[in-house]
């Protein structure tokens, strides 16, 4: 075993940067999940109810995103788009756009599965009591779908939060970036990466258990 002397003071000295980085990473994940969910609902509807000309492009979008590494998408939006003279977005906006599109593809699949698993009797019952098509969606289908998809939703939030570490590659000062920077500045390799890992772990665990409670309250269709 190599002798290594831990010096955690470097972490305490940079506690404010870590805190800011953690907040930034969480915001990126939450905002992207929100936008991604909107994309996801629209695309899932298009795939389930839409005509062929509508569902086919959605299929293409979902498969393209799901089969491309996220880092490449991040690079494409950040480095590639300005080369095509599309440079309205700053680095944070570029990343949110990328992560939202990425989340959107996954949420499309989640919601599609949710829609598919709603028992036919629900919509038939809604029809029987005279609800119009949009009312059926609004009051019956979507609420049930959200409950069904809640576990998948929380899984996605956690995995998106971990994916925000890729933002370090385009100089966004989130957790991985800060850990790397402290690493470069002080050579306290173990301390900075262990601190970052612990923060990822604890945050993900807290999100997971909070959402699990929520699931227990709402998720079941009884």
């Amino acid at each position: 075993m190599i002798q290594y002397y831990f010096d955690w003071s470097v972490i305490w000295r940079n506690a404010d940067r870590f805190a800011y980085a953690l907040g930034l990473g969480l915001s990126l994940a939450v905002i992207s999940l929100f936008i991604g969910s909107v994309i996801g609902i629209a695309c899932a509807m298009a795939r389930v109810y839409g005509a062929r000309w509508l569902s086919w492009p959605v299929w293409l979008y979902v498969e393209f995103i799901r089969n491309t590494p996220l880092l490449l998408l991040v690079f494409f939006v950040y480095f590639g788009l300005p080369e095509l003279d599309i440079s309205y977005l700053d680095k944070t906006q570029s990343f949110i756009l990328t992560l939202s599109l990425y989340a959107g593809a996954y949420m499309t699949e989640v919601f599609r599965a949710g829609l598919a698993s709603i028992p036919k009797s629900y919509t038939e019952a809604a029809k029987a009591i005279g609800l119009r098509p949009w009312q059926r969606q609004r009051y019956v289908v979507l609420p049930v779908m959200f409950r069904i998809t809640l576990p998948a939703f929380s899984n996605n939030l956690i995995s998106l939060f971990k994916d925000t570490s890729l933002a370090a590659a385009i100089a966004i000062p989130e957790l991985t970036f800060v850990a790397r920077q402290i690493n470069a500045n002080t050579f306290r390799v173990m301390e900075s990466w262990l601190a970052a890992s612990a923060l990822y772990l604890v945050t993900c665990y807290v999100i997971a258990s909070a959402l699990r409670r929520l699931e227990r309250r709402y998720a079941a269709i009884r």
Partner: protein
Amino acid sequence: MDERKDEAGLVRRGFFGLSAVGAAAGAGLGLMAPAGATAQTLGKSRLQMIKERGRLLVGTGSTNPPWHFEDANGQLQGMDIDLARLLAKNLFDDPTKVEFVLQGSDARIPSLITDKVDIVVQWMTVTAGRAQQVEFTIPYYREGVSLLLLARGGKYKSFDELKSAGNTVTIGGMQNVFLEEWVRKALPQAKVDAFESPDATLQALNARRVDAYLADQSAARWLMQQTPGRFIDSGYGWMPNSYASAVKPGDPVWLNWVNTVYKEAMMGVDFDYFAASYKKWFGIELPTPKVGFPTEFA
């Protein structure tokens, strides 16, 4: 004649060496050195050892253009490599009689101390601290940092424009300890974006994500040389530091010989070789040294 001088040198340096080893007894490392090797390096100049061996051992790296890096065929090339070949040419009349020992920057001093190499030609910055462990030759380049700008399509064209733009400017650079400090020195208000690698930083400049790329001045020149017309230098360089070769301490004959070669490369008989190499790696034509005077008057 030369040999007699060396005999005398042996005696004097031998005594000096002995007392030095004695003083270092507590350090341990000094005592570990085999006595035979010590006697040999003290007795005969490395210059003679190299002549007898028939090839020069040069410590260098392979990953830092334009100093020492591999071409498409895996052959080492660069400014450092050219200087090493110039030494071999002047030793053996054959620039190929050099063996490159590839090493990381952190191995530059240890490999000299342990006699793994005869000389280090590896973009070594001269510092007073290092000069206590090795002996530096005369410097062959003054390095610094400069700002690389896009020649076309960028917002700023010169250092003055960058400076007057204040905090609306973003400077990209490699993530390292000094990045922010160096940028602040020249542009106190600028924002700094740190990237993981030089290529990511360069792409950020290409994509106009950053307004300028803070690079080693030599790297900036190399990039301009590689893609003519694409980049320009902001015209301001700072953070000066000198690149020199280093040798193991205690061998004035060898050190002086290398210094002679370097000096005459920059100012004398090998100027054409040096200037051609300089042009190749930095894209700049060196003016011919003024002739007809002692150097002190030129």
